[in-house]
């Protein structure tokens, strides 16, 4: 076991673990504004990790996707969310429902599961970043968990966007990113989705006087 891991791979692994750590931090964060900041930080780390992969492998299109990630996920989307929070006066929304220790434990189980699922796949991969596929899947599942446990609209959306972060990490770690057309399309979908949700938030607030989705429990099978 004396084969030294190259510096680039070490850096990529470091960034990936920071992303995983931020996922857990987001899971535990109850206040909305710090949550958005954590999301921005995750986007930034994602962009940095993509940049390192791009630099190591000399893939020009990865520079583009790193730039796109930085612009979209570390700057534009957090800015839109900040504006929404300010305009909707949702700044002091603190959630009290979630049981943080239990959520954390469930999160750890999810991480173990995703490492097991990803193991056979990463063994077949030849990319420098193959070790991070498990982390990518874990990020997706943790974001999923966050969406389930949250009761306010904006944290659910942050969870939704964090899930996209995990998917992006999966794409870069397994295959050095999807073809450019697809990545542009995905970025467009995410952006349009965020804008539509912004419009939608105002409608919900006008209707319910709150962004608490516990008010939305009328439609179910009785």
């Amino acid at each position, binding site marked *: 076991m004396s084969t030294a891991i190259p510096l680039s791979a070490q850096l990529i692994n470091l960034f990936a673990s920071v992303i995983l750590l931020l996922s857990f931090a987001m899971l535990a964060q109850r206040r909305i504004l710090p949550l958005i900041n954590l999301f921005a930080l995750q986007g930034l780390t994602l962009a940095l990790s993509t940049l390192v992969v791009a630099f190591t492998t000399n893939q020009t299109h990865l520079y583009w996707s790193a730039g796109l990630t930085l612009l979209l996920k570390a700057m534009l989307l957090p800015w839109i969310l900040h504006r929404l929070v300010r305009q909707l006066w949702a700044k002091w929304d603190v959630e009290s429902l979630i049981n943080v220790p239990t959520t954390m434990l469930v999160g750890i189980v999810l991480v173990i599961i995703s490492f097991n699922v990803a193991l056979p*796949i990463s063994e077949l991969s030849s990319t420098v970043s193959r070790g991070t596929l498990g982390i990518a899947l874990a990020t997706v599942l943790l974001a999923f968990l966050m*969406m389930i446990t949250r009761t306010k*609209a904006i944290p659910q959306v942050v969870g*939704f966007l964090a899930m996209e972060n995990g*998917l992006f990490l999966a794409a870069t770690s397994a295959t050095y990113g*999807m073809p450019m057309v697809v990545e542009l*399309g995905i970025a467009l979908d995410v952006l349009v*989705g965020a804008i539509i949700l912004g419009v939608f938030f105002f409608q919900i607030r006008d209707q*319910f006087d709150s962004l608490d989705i516990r008010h*939305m429990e009328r439609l179910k099978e009785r």
Partner: protein
Amino acid sequence: MNVDFFILMLAIPLVSGALLIFAGERDWAPHLNIIASAGTFLASVLLTMEIIDHGARFALGEQFFIDSMNVFFVTLTTFVGLTTSIFFGPYMRNEEAHGRLTKPRLRLYKSMFQLFMFTMLIALTTNNLGLLWVAMEAATLTTVLLVSLYRTSASQEAAWKYFILCGVGIAQALFGTILLYFAAERVLGETGNALLWTHLVDVKGQLNPTIMAISFIFLLVGYGTKVGLAPLHNWLPDAHAEGPTPVSAVLSGLLLNVALYAILRCKVLADGAIPTGFAGNLMMGFGLLTLVVAAFFLARQKDVKRMFAYSSIEHMGLITFAFGMGGATANFAGLLHMTMHSLTKSAIFFAVGHAAQKCGTQIMEDIRGLIKINPVIGWGLMLGTLAILGMPPFGVFASEFMILTHAIKYFPWATPFLLIALGVAFAAIFGKVQPMVFDEAHAKPLPHAPAITPVFLHLGIVLMIGLYMPPYLVRWFQEAAKMMG
């Protein structure tokens, strides 16, 4: 060939979608909507004739690919799009007269409807499985604001659920697509062709079976959410019941088909890579579960649109099961059933929309005696219901019969589930629709005469196919069924 009908077919909805935003509330805006849909339909028919004559072809480099399988979905989509926009005019004028909708929202509706058609046509014709995902997500985005068009608390709840559940589902599908790309890249290399379906089909035998199996699970669960497969079907009845009726008609008649089409494309690849029939078994399992769950929920419904939404889930389960069985006969039956379900279900939604408008409610107990208030709507609903329940001589009978006999022959263990589910569904729906049509009446006439042509147009086609299938249609279905293996 000077005019590329394919480009025309994509350009019309895109341009008219943009135009309709700016057209505002001018008088010609509804006409533009119908004209655009008619133009799209015409272009797709011409495209179909071209494909029948000259065989499959690419468009815009290799990014788009039209063959006998998807051209059939394209025609169906544009046809239902056209009839829906014809239906839309009188329906929305009535809604406006009732004060449920305002002009700006109608403008939003028309524009979004055209863009929705655009995204679905992209999803159907693209050769790139990544673009397919992008278009599917875009189709959700264009319809979210349509589901919440009435801005009632229930419709917003439905739209929120629709957005979040489909968003989560479609994220799984993206992960599946990434894994598929990963498997393909090892065979095809980093050429950018590794997501093109035509390239993938050529090498499907060499794709790594383990990765393909994991990938197909994610793809099936992801796109399956949009098809309405249990257990992620919860968004569907809400979105159908709370959105405006034309939206319910296109969601049920078209969006579910397009999502299922995405699964079918992926299944061809998974079947090539995994020799054990894993993909088919998985689809049979999900299909059967969906069918049974939906059938039992049907019996408890009080809202008429909600009930027919569950009926859509039930039929999607049946179709998924049929494609899961695989083979020429089952695929043929699945395709036929998809067509019949699209036409019948949108016809039912058209009739139900007018019926609900007439009685001012969607609660079935309060809708009574349609046959006396408006015999045409009453008969439309009755015949549509009989058709969707699989009564001969309608086309649904033919396809359900084929699915059942195929299941009895090759998968006898599934037969009791199929029969029980279909029986329960029949009892539930017929028992509820019968008094709605034939009971004593109490309702006022509508300010605007309803558009009944689309209902009977759809039912007429379903009846015709039940009695006589034109040979070119049979050949078309057979060719598509063969492609699916």
